[in-house]
């Protein structure tokens, strides 16, 4: 396994096998981030390509102050946010009040809830309805195993905001799932 420094210097010397290795190592991370905010498959793949081409162009500017994966995730995050702006999606926040559970995640039709056999799918459908920056924070933490400071570095958010986003999003999802589970128990 090549370390970040060796990998980057090989790519800068024009070694395309090293670039292929970089893509293989980070395609999952980039696909997670872009895939969470863009639902169209072709558009997602195209955006992932743009991210890696940008990485290739900017690699000589990478100064090893952070992990290579964090730097790549930062580029992917910016691309995702630009795409959200292009698609005119809202980058709104979840309001602070106790009633925020009713705010962004719409009440799911009880019939569809009863039809929902897979709880994971139910939760992921709820995640899809969250504001994009919440989805990305959840993805980086739970799927890519990033720490709070790393997520802060990727998104440019203070660590406290990252923690707050995670807490509120999971709390919101839990309330919906609890409601769903409660209904199942009644049946």
């Amino acid at each position, binding site marked *: 396994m090549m370390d970040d420094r060796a990998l980057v210097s090989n790519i800068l010397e*024009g070694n*395309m096998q090293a*670039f*292929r290795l970089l*893509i*293989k190592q980070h*395609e999952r991370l980039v*696909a*997670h981030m872009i*895939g*969470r905010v863009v639902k169209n*498959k072709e558009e*997602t*793949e195209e955006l*992932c*390509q743009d991210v*890696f*081409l940008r990485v*290739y*162009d900017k690699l000589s500017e990478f100064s090893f102050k952070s992990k290579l994966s964090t730097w790549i995730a930062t580029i992917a995050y910016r691309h995702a946010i630009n795409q959200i702006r292009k698609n005119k999606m809202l980058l709104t926040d979840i309001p602070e009040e106790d009633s925020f559970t009713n705010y962004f995640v719409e009440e799911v039709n009880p019939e569809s809830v009863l039809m929902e056999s897979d*709880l*994971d*799918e*139910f*939760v*992921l459908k709820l*995640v899809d309805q969250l504001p994009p920056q919440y989805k990305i924070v*959840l993805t980086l933490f*739970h*799927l890519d195993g990033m720490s709070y400071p790393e997520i802060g570095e990727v998104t440019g958010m203070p660590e406290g905001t990252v923690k*707050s986003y*995670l*807490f509120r999003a*999971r*709390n919101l*999802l*839990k*309330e919906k*799932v*609890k409601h769903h*589970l*409660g209904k199942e128990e009644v049946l």
Partner: protein
Amino acid sequence: MNRYEEELQRNLEAGQHPEGNELDVKAYQSVFNALRKEPEFTLSSSFADKLVGMAVKKQQSKNIFREYFWFGFGIFLMLIAFVVTIAMTGFKLDMGFLNGLNSFKGVIIFGLFFIGFLHWLDKRLIRPTQTN
């Protein structure tokens, strides 16, 4: 932040079983499990190859641009050197040497036709035999 909820989330993050309302714990566990689930979307198997191809093309067009730039810059420098040399030496173009050639018209015309003939022979006889 609600202390109770925060504690539940922290315990689950640490992989411990949290103490609390059973339904809350169950709901949180479902949320955490779902969030860890790998999304269905995956990039195509040829994704890396396609990208490497694109990067190579990009690099090639960059190199071509660089080559043209230096070629143009070289010509520009050469012209400057030419102008500076003319200005410094006071060189004036004199075609007087052509007058000397005037008495060898026949030799020059023969020379031009002979070179043309050699080229024709080269094309007709020598190159086809080399390609066979």
